[in-house]
C-alpha cells in the first residue's frame, strides 16, 4: 500500500500520531493555498514591472513571457516626464495628508461625542452617519458642485456666493465636518474605539478637576492612538487612490491619479508620435504598465515600513465590538 509507505516515512521523520499526519497535510495545503492567493494578489504588480522594462518587440516575441530580450529602461524616463512625476506626487501628497489630518480630527471629536455622551437622538443621528456612507457620491455630485460653485451658506454670504471650486476648500469643509470621503466610516471606527476605553480614565480626570474638553484632549486622545493611526492611514490611502471627487471639485490639481488617467495622451504629445499610440495597444500597454507601477510605488514603499502598524492597529481598534 502506498499510503502506508508514506505514513511510515512520516513516522520515521518523527510524526507519531494520526493527528500529526493530518496536521502535516494541512500545513502543506495551507502553504500552497497561501502562496496561490499571494500570487494572484501580486500578479498585477509583476505584470506591471515586467511589461515596464519591455520594448515593443518583446511583446511580439513568443518566446518572451516575463523576462524581455531587449531591456528597455527608457520607459521610466518617458513616463516620469509625461506624468510630471514630482509635481503630481507632491500634489497627491498635499491633498491626501490634508484630508487625512482633517478627517482624523473630525472623526476623533465626533466619534467621542457619540461614544461617551447620552443625548436625545444619539442613535438616530448615528444612523444618519451610516446613511451618508451608502449614498454614492454620484447621487449628490451635481448639487455639491453647484453649492461649491456658488457657495453662500443659505444666502449668508452676499453677492451670489463665492466660487470654491478648484481650491482646497471643498475638501477642507467636507473633511472637517466628517462628511468627506468615507467620513462616516472613520466616525464609526473612532466611536467603537472610545466605547472600548474604560470610563475610569475620564472619571479620574474629572476628579482631578478637568473639564470635558480637557479630559478628552489630555486623557482620551492620547489613549486612542491605535484607532487614530487606522483612521489616518485609511483616509490617506483612500484619498490618494480616489479620483472622482478630486477630479470634479478640484480639476486643476494635477495629482498622480489624473496623471495616470491621461498618461497615454501626455506620452503621445511628449514623443510627438505621428500616428498616436492611442490606437496602438502594443505600445500603450508598455507605458500604461510603467505608469501604474510608478503610481503604486510610493504607497507600496510606505506600506512596506508601516504594514505592521497597519495590521496590528486594526486589531486593537475594537472595531468588532
Amino acid at each position, binding site marked *: 500500500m502506498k499510503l502506508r509507505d508514506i505514513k511510515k516515512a512520516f513516522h520515521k521523520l518523527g510524526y507519531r500520531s494520526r493527528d500529526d499526519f493530518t496536521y502535516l497535510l494541512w500545513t502543506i495545503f495551507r502553504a500552497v493555498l497561501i502562496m496561490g492567493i499571494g500570487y494572484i*494578489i501580486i500578479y498585477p504588480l509583476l505584470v506591471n514591472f515586467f511589461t515596464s522594462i519591455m520594448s515593443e518587440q518583446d511583446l511580439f516575441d513568443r518566446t518572451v513571457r516575463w523576462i524581455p530580450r531587449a531591456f528597455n529602461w527608457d520607459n521610466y524616463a518617458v513616463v516620469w516626464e509625461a506624468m510630471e512625476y514630482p509635481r503630481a506626487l507632491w500634489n497627491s501628497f498635499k491633498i491626501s495628508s490634508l484630508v487625512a489630518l482633517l478627517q482624523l480630527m473630525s472623526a476623533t471629536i465626533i466619534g467621542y461625542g457619540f461614544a461617551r455622551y447620552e443625548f436625545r437622538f444619539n442613535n438616530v443621528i448615528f444612523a444618519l452617519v451610516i446613511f451618508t456612507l451608502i449614498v454614492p457620491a454620484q*447621487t449628490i455630485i451635481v448639487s455639491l458642485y453647484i453649492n461649491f460653485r456658488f457657495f453662500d451658506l443659505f444666502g449668508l454670504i452676499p453677492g451670489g456666493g463665492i466660487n470654491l471650486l478648484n481650491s482646497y476648500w471643498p475638501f477642507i469643509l467636507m473633511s472637517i465636518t466628517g462628511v468627506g470621503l468615507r467620513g462616516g466610516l472613520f466616525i464609526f471606527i473612532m466611536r467603537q474605539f472610545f466605547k472600548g476605553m474604560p470610563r475610569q480614565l475620564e472619571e479620574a480626570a474629572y476628579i482631578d478637576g478637568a473639564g470635558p474638553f480637557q479630559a478628552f484632549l489630555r486623557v482620551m486622545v492620547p489613549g486612542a492612538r491605535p484607532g487614530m493611526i487606522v483612521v489616518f492611514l485609511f483616509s490617506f490611502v483612500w484619498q490618494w487612490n480616489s479620483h472622482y471627487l478630486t477630479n470634479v471639485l478640484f480639476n486643476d490639481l494635477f495629482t498622480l491619479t489624473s496623471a495616470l488617467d491621461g498618461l497615454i495622451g501626455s506620452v503621445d504629445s511628449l514623443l510627438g508620435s505621428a500616428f498616436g499610440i492611442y490606437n496602438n495597444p502594443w505600445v500603450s500597454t508598455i507605458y500604461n504598465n510603467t505608469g501604474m507601477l510608478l503610481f503604486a510605488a510610493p504607497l507600496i514603499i510606505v506600506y512596506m515600513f508601516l504594514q505592521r502598524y497597519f495590521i496590528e492597529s486594526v486589531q486593537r481598534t475594537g472595531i468588532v465590538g
Partner: protein
Amino acid sequence: MDPKKTAGKIVGKLKNSFKFTKSKRRSLYGYLFISPFLIGFIILFLVPFFQSAYFSVNRLQITRTGYELHYVGLENFNYAFFVDPDFVQVLTTEIIRIFYQLPMIIIFSFFAAAVLNQKFRGRMLARAIFFLPVILGSAIMLEIQQGDLAMQMMAGVQETGEGARQALQNGEGGILGTQAFEAFLMNLRMPEVFIEYIVEAVNNVPEIINASAIQILIFLAGLQSVPSALYESADVEGATGWEKFWMITFPMLTPVILINVIYTIIDQFVGETAGILGFINAFIFGVGYGRGTAMAVVYFTVIGVILLVVGFIVSRYVFYHDF
C-alpha cells in the same frame, strides 16, 4: 422639625437638581462634540441630497449667474427605465453582482482570516501580502488594467497555441486559464448552467480576493477578540475542532459578519470601482444632469433597500455575547 432632616432633604433636592442639570449639561456637551457632523450633514449632505432629488424631476441648465430648472415631472425616470437602452441592463447586472459576490467575499474573507489567524512561519509576510489590495485598489488602476493588453496576454500564455492567444485578446479567458477548465467540466457532462456558474466564480477569483482585504482584517480582529476561555472550556468538555468552530467561533463572529456585509456593500457598490456609477457619471457630465441624477437616485434607492433587507436578515441571526 428636625433641622438635620430638613438639611438632608434640601441637600437631597439639590443633589437631584444637580443631577438633572448635570445630565442636561452632558447632553449639551454631547451635541457640542458632534456639532461638526451636524453642520456638515445639513449643509454638505442633506441639502445637496434633497436638491439632487429635486434635480431628478427637472431639466437643469447652468447659466452665467447660477442655474435654471425646468420642471419635467417624472420624465427623467421614464427615460431611465423605458427609453435608455442600457440603464436597466446595467442596473440588473449590478444587482446580480451584489447577490453572487457578496456571499463569495464574506465566505472567502472568513476562511482567509481563519487561516491567517493560525500560527505558522511567514505569517506576517502572508498578512502583509493579503492586505496589499487595500493600497492597490485605485479605481483608475483597475480601469486601466481591464483594458490593458499585457494584463490579458500574460494571463493567456498559460494556454498553448495561437488560438488561445487570439481568444484572450478578444477578452475571453482569465487568469486561471478557464477555457481548459470549462472543457474539462464539459467532459464531465455537467449541466451547462452549473458550469457557467462555476466558471464565472473561478473567473472572479482574483476580483473576490482583491475585494476582501479589509474584510479579512476585520474578521481577524474579530477572531482575536473571542475569549480563549471559551475554547479552553470546550477542550475540557472534549469538543472537536469542527464543533468548536460551529459552537464558538461562528456565533461569536456573527456581529462581525454583519459589519462586513455592510462594509462590502459600501466598498464594492457605492465606491468608485462600481461599474454602474461610471455609467451614471457619464450621463451626469455628458447628456444631462437631470437624467443622470435620476439614475443615481434609482440606484441609491435599490442599494438602500437591499442593504436594509440583507442587514435585517443577517441581524436576525446575529448572536451577541454578554460577558
